[in-house]
């Protein structure tokens, strides 16, 4: 009886409140649904001010790069929102951005949709908002967008993600491409023609030089120079070699000797001399080295100095590379006359010795000795990689690859 009475009371309570909830849901249900729909659009509205509704048109587009995952058309005719991602060498976690583009091809909003590594990458709120603001009003050229010092890898990934997003709209004739100036075209050519120039920064220059850039790692200089109505890019490496390119990216050095002379003069007056450091290193690692002779290279890599020298009757070639890993690295590669690595050394392999020694019993001597005997034919690059020190070991890999390329160019010149 007690049980029946208890259950009856509980049943009555359940029926009453159940009915109340049913009735209330008739009023609140539509409001909650509208709120949820609005929340789903929040990430898109963050990139498209004034946006009201969105239509997913991803499946209707062609030439989508892997970095672009979603494309929406704003239904009231404001433009498009593209979700694009980028990754950096610093982290495997993607940086996902939402880019709003109006129908004139101008960016009207950008937002970081997600970035797994934000906490460790100095993206504080004000810095982020100030940086995002530089994208507003830009067209596909992104001419006035710069990178942020201190989060270079992330801001590079961000810029690339935005560029990919714009590229999709241009490829599908949804907006017109922006027109880049010659200055911008030539500046953007630097990483292609001089891949070893790390973080080129503007320095003062005069004469025909419209813009002078100095590589932070000392690998050389890049100049945008004018001659008549045309502009050209001159790159000078640390050993003094110079090449001239036009806006099409064509090597036109032979036809512009005067520009090359002017560029070399400025570079020579401002280039840091790395020969002494290389000579000192050779003296330490190679006993009885003699006839050390400086070489001029025609590669534009991370090699800042190159020499040939003799040990007895054998000839060797020494290369000093300043590649960029987690920090600036100084790597020395000595290659024998047959093209095999005789020695490899660095000022400091990993930024903390304790960090390096923790890798499964591997020690520094073993790591260096692992390079001895490798030639450019047998070199895969994987010999340099340490799985949990990717950035630093990638820098060693780059230095070694650049050394082999420099050796080939020297031998090709001797042939």
């Amino acid at each position, binding site marked *: 009886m007690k049980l029946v009475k208890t259950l009856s009371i*509980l049943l009555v309570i359940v029926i009453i*409140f159940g009915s109340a909830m049913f009735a209330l849901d008739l009023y609140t249900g539509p409001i909650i649904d509208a709120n949820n729909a609005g929340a789903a659009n929040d990430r898109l509205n963050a990139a498209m001010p004034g946006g009201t509704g969105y239509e997913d048109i991803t499946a209707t587009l062609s030439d989508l790069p892997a970095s672009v995952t979603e494309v929406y058309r704003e239904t009231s005719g404001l433009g498009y929102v593209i979700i694009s991602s980028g990754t950096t060498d610093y982290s495997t976690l993607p940086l996902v951005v939402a880019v709003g583009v109006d129908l004139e091809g101008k960016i009207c909003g950008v937002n970081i949709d997600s970035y797994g590594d934000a906490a460790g990458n100095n993206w504080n709120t004000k810095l982020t908002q100030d940086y995002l603001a530089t994208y507003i009003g830009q067209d596909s050229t992104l001419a006035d967008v710069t990178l942020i010092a201190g989060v270079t890898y992330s801001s590079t990934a961000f810029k690339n993600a935005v560029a990919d997003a714009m590229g999709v709209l241009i490829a599908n004739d949804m907006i017109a491409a922006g027109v880049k100036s010659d200055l911008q075209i030539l500046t953007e050519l630097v990483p292609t023609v001089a891949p070893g120039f790390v973080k080129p920064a503007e320095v003062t220059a005069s004469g025909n030089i419209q813009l002078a850039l100095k590589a932070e790692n000392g690998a050389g200089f890049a100049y945008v120079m004018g001659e008549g109505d045309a502009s050209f890019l001159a790159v000078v490496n640390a050993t003094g070699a110079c090449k001239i390119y036009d806006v099409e990216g064509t090597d036109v050095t032979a036809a512009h000797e005067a520009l090359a002379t002017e560029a070399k003069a400025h570079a020579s007056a401002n280039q840091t001399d790395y020969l002494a450091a290389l000579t000192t290193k050779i003296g330490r690692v190679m006993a009885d080295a003699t006839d050390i002779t400086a070489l001029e290279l025609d590669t534009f890599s991370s090699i800042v100095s190159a020499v040939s020298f003799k040990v007895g009757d054998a000839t060797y070639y020494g290369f000093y590379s300043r590649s960029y890993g987690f920090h600036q690295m100084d790597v020395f590669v000595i290659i024998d006359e047959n093209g095999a690595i005789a020695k490899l050394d660095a000022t400091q392999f990993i930024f903390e010795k304790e960090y390096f020694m923790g890798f499964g019993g591997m020690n520094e001597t073993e790591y260096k000795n692992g390079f001895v005997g490798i030639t450019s034919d047998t070199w895969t690059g994987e010999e340099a990689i340490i799985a949990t020190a990717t950035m630093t070991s990638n820098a060693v890999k780059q230095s070694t690859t650049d050394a082999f390329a420099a050796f080939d160019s020297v031998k090709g010149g001797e042939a």
Partner: protein
Amino acid sequence: MKKTKTSYLLRGTPSVLLVLGAGFVMASSADIRAALGMGAAVLLSMLLSSIVVSALHKVIPAYAKMPAYLLIITGFVSLISMLMQAWFPLVVDMLGVHLATLAVSAVVYRDAEEVADHNGEATSIKTALVTGIFFTVVMVACALIREVLGNATIWGQPIAFLEDYKISALAGAFGGYLVLAIVMAVINKLTGLHHHIEEKEDNC
């Protein structure tokens, strides 16, 4: 001990005296908006369930009171939750699961069982109001400290000059309990409430 109206009112400040609601205060006081939202939810659920429990406590047999009161409280919390989802979705997002767990909160159940179950509607309503308002005041006080000093914001708006000086630990669980402990100590000191309770109990 004779249960006076005053003791009921004094006993209706669990966050200060009994720390029953400490979990809710910690979880909901990282932002002033969330604190107000949770405080309003507690106040309403306490008030409505007190009214119903005090109206029905003579009808419901003793052996059925616990499940019945829990169902009543749960029902009201669900209704309040639906209304908040419709009108204040941002606050509901901030509160997360803590709003739903209000249904099994010792704060609300204790008020129903100890006060509403033994008194008429008038006393139950007064006690629920006092408890709910004090609970809300404590939460807002904690939220003010945590949001301003821990997040450098107020009502979600950034305070630029504090951005470089914010103490992030205050925005977390540790900071929540720390701030609550400090606020409780201050309130106890200012009002002498704990002494009043002890005197009343000694006189019983």
